[in-house]
């Protein structure tokens, strides 16, 4: 749950980028870090393995201004995507307010996407949260790969596999090029902040 400090009139909102390993969660945050450098006061924190994979999480905090007299501090996190790091994923999900599910459009990763989304659902349940109620945005990443002739899943297939019941807002994106990275982030912030509005009144 977002933390509201009534003395400083400040709200801290936690948004987690979830999805299968090597799907581009960290790349999303790296792009945001470059693109919005002026608004980001602190360095992005990453806890990586030697192989440059996210071991624990990436963390990027920034301010988005005021809503109803409260300054809003957004904290973006990623989780490690690899299956074996579930304990760490659960730690990062603690207190989450909004989620971006970064799906990998590569043909080969179809099964991985489905399993990761199922894993998200289960981990949320362990915190008594329902995937259908939490602010969630779908991002179909790596759309650029089709330009290189690499087989990718159609958006329709991804929608059917992942979003037929959730019906979350979705974006086709290329995190490496920056396509729709900001749009995804803006959408999840908007959904999350809207869900908090009642609490701020």
């Amino acid at each position, binding site marked *: *749950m977002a*933390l509201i*400090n009534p003395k400083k009139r400040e709200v*801290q909102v936690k948004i987690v980028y979830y999805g299968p390993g090597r799907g581009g969660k960290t790349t999303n945050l790296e792009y945001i870090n470059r693109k919005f450098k002026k608004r980001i006061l602190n360095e992005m924190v990453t806890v990586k393995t030697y192989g440059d994979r996210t071991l*624990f999480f990436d*963390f990027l905090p920034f301010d988005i201004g005021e809503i109803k007299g409260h300054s809003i501090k957004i904290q973006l996190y990623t989780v490690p995507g690899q299956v074996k790091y579930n304990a760490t994923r659960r*730690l990062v999900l*603690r*207190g989450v307010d909004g989620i971006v599910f970064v799906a990998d459009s590569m043909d080969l990763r179809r099964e991985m996407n489905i399993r990761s989304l199922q894993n998200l659902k289960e981990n949320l349940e362990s*915190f008594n949260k329902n995937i259908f109620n939490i602010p969630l945005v779908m991002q179909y990443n790596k759309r650029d790969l089709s330009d290189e002739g690499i087989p990718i899943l159609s958006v329709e297939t991804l929608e059917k596999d992942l979003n037929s019941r959730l019906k979350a807002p979705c974006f086709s994106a290329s995190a490496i090029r920056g396509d729709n990275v900001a749009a995804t982030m803006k959408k999840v912030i908007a959904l999350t902040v809207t869900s908090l509005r009642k609490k701020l009144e």
Partner: protein
Amino acid sequence: MEFTIDFTKEQIESIEEILQKELIDMGVQSVILMDLAGNVIVNLDSGETDHDVFSLAALAAGNYGAVSAMANIIGEQEFSLLFHKGEEESIHFSKVADDLLLLTIFNKNVSLGFLRLKVAEAVKRIKNVI
């Protein structure tokens, strides 16, 4: 397990007063009261430091969770002393309540024993406020 911690303005002021008196006035550099989601609830410092407290809190929450999981693996509920010692500055972690953590950053002018005593006192007083 999910939790919501809502503090009133008065509670935050009382906690700030406790932390100022028990820890900052005793020579501690910086204190952060945070939840295990990594949110900063109260942050005070002596004016000599300029740490990135939000990143610190995010990492501390993860670190605390990881250490607790390690404790469970070897059959412990938790480790009662969590402390990282640096050459100049050190960090001490103390659990205040189920989801609240007190992070204390201090330098070599403050002894660990004395700090633990003062932290225990502060934690006791904070528990009366929340």
